[in-house]
């Protein structure tokens, strides 16, 4: 079996009486493009926050690249990149200033920080506004900058919380090819998205969380095998997702109740 990049053992997080993440056991191999799916409020962002050190687990353990996060937080953080929920940008810096800040915080030397900042701004098409503050960026531009900041130090694991939300099609295409090439070179990419088509196109492996519990995990083929399909047609990720999370449509609202609209 390939090296394990991310491994959790009964990872749990409670907020008072609410158990947001309930004893999940994740295994993500190094170099995998891993999709982490779930409906709203399922516990996706809470899991990412725990895996990136923004939230302390109530119980359970997690290892990244073989290191226990609780014991070696700084060593682990050096090797991961994160686009968190809300992006975590300092909005009163310019894009270049922010990338410079992040590069130096991750210990890059000055010439490397400058060179990478320029190249990333160019790649993300953010270089034409050198004096604009991040606060003046559009949502999509902020997303691209957050991604640039997450990769500036060349991380071995990349955590992306809804990375394509608000990004235009042109930039999304460029980002997807960048992420694909990073995965080919051995970077593990852990991604959450509500756009199942993107996850299906990019990810080789998927886990589904529902009401805090991990309800499915495996390669797309393995998950497809567990869902009955019509003969001759390939089961889509959306069908898999709905069959696992939506119990085949049993939770859909009764449309008859909206007869006045329909």
């Amino acid at each position, binding site marked *: 079996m390939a090296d394990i990049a991310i491994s959790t053992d009964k990872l749990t997080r409670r907020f008072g009486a609410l158990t947001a993440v309930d004893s999940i056991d994740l295994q993500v191999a190094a170099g995998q493009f891993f999709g982490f799916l779930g409906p709203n409020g399922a516990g996706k962002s809470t899991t990412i926050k725990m895996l990136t050190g923004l939230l302390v687990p109530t119980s359970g353990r997690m290892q990244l690249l073989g290191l226990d996060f609780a014991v070696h937080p700084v060593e682990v953080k050096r090797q991961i990149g994160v686009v968190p929920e809300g992006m975590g940008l300092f909005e009163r810096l310019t894009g270049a200033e922010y990338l410079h800040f992040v590069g130096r*915080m991750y210990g890059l030397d*000055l010439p490397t920080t400058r060179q990478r900042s320029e190249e990333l701004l160019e790649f993300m098409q953010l270089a034409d506004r050198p004096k604009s503050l991040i606060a003046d960026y559009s949502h999509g531009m902020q997303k691209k900058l957050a991604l640039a900041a997450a990769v500036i130090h060349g991380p071995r694991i990349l955590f992306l919380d809804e990375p394509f939300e608000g990004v235009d099609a042109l930039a999304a295409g460029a980002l997807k090819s960048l992420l694909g090439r990073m995965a080919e070179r051995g970077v593990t990419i852990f991604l959450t998205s509500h756009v199942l088509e993107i996850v299906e196109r990019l990810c080789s492996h998927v886990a589904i969380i529902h009401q805090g519990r991990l309800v499915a995990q495996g390669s797309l083929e393995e998950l497809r095998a567990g869902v009955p399909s019509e003969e001759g047609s390939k089961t889509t990720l959306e069908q898999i997702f709905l069959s696992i999370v939506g119990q085949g449509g049993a939770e859909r609202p009764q449309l008859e109740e909206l007869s006045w609209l329909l």
Partner: protein
Amino acid sequence: MAAVTHFPGVIGQIRLVAALRWRLLRNAMRRKNNRLDLIGLLLSEIFGSLLVLGLCFAFYAGSYNFLSRGHLNWIALLYWGIFVWWQLFPVLVAGFGASFEFRTLLRFPLSRSAFYIIGLAYGLADVSALASLCWLLSITLGAAAAQPHVVPATLLVNLVFVLMNVNLERLIGSWLERLLARRRTRELFFALFILSMVSLQFVSPLIERYGDALRPWVRVAYQYLAPFPGSLAGRAVAGAAANQYGDFFLGLAGLSFYVLLFAALLWVRFSAQYRGEELSEAPAPSRLIPRAMAKETGEAAVLRFLSPQVAEVLRKEFYYLLRNGFSFFLVIMPPLFILLFTTQVGSLRHRSSGFDLPHASLFPAMMGYLVFILIAPAYNSFAYEGRGVQTYFMAPIRFRHVFLGKNLLFVFLLALELVLSIVFFAYRVGLPPAPRFVATLAAIVFSVAGQLPIANWSALNFPRKLNFGQMRGQRQSGMAVLTLFGVQIVLGGIGALILFSGRWFDNPWLPAEAFAGLAAAALAGYFASLDALSELAEKKKERLLEALCR
């Protein structure tokens, strides 16, 4: 679907908007679940109402006296007072926060007239308008007590005066809304406000010096105000009181002209909004321009001695300081106030002889004030980080780097301001004796190094998010403020005791020696606290992220 749809008329739409405002107010009150907040709010409301009520008596007395004693020309002063308040107060508070934008109602099928009338109704519901209405009522009551026959004319003048003011206030508000939609304009506006507040402090000394020379100019200027609203209203009421109906009608006609003018201009503004005016903050798309090559500048010399992480936090803090109007002015204000205070003390000095005891105590007091003003933000030092605070926890650093960077900037600023303030002080008042001077400097080191660990602890325990360039709706963390004041009281007590110990023991250098010892201990304590604070940051990070990332 159409069968159940019944569009309300203008009155119905106004009633719906009134209900919406009431619900917004009620729901906003629900958030203030903290009992102390609610008490504070009630106290400020009561204080505000008392102020308005007190001025009601003043306007009543003014109106009664001017009419009963025949000082008819002075009535215009009352109207000018109300006019300036009505127009100026909303402008002063406009830039400091988001309030309900009635423009958002445009998504609903409102008629243009309903939109205009609702706009005016909003104007009448403002604090400035409500207070002005109370004062106008007081003028009418004063007139009724002095000359009952003037009441109908006063009522008519007041009605037209109200229409003129509400139209003008909405017109100015509408233009301000357009201007302040952009963040930069909002911050510039805020900076101008702070500057004007500082400038006002200099009015008293200037009047004291140049007041006599200005008096004739004021009389001339007052004549030129005759064609403007306050004077026109005064002229109409005075005309009615003196049975000179030519003056009454002239004043009223002038006021009516302003009503028509402002109403027409407001209609044009509201029509632009009604058609769909774009006030978005997002920059317009621009063509791709070739990027200027980044300048290959080396690291600033002062930063080379620091670790890259500390240097970056320091640099980021510096950028944030320059880009935050409020913090920036907070920083430049203390030397200005010291200049102001010493200007007044300096004039006293000319009348007294030499550098006596109060003057000798003034130097440590001024420096204490400087430290107090500058260190206050450190008690909630993450206030402006917003979601960026996540970067500190995602990066492979220890939190001591963050505190060191933040605290270093504070120390640099303090040193700079100390030098400036000492120069001002020496120029205006003269330096205190050497033992007092050295003791004060050592006391500053003790106070700063002793306070910073407590301020850092407070910033982790009582974080509260603040927004750039806003004042209204921004409230400091109550516990951080309490901690700040508690520490000042303790340090002030220690400082005073030590300063006076020199006199008690008849040894002028004793305070300097004592403060130097305390400063050394405080510095050692500061560096020892950094690791403990790093651990505390890990424990408190969820609270910090929750408070700042909302």
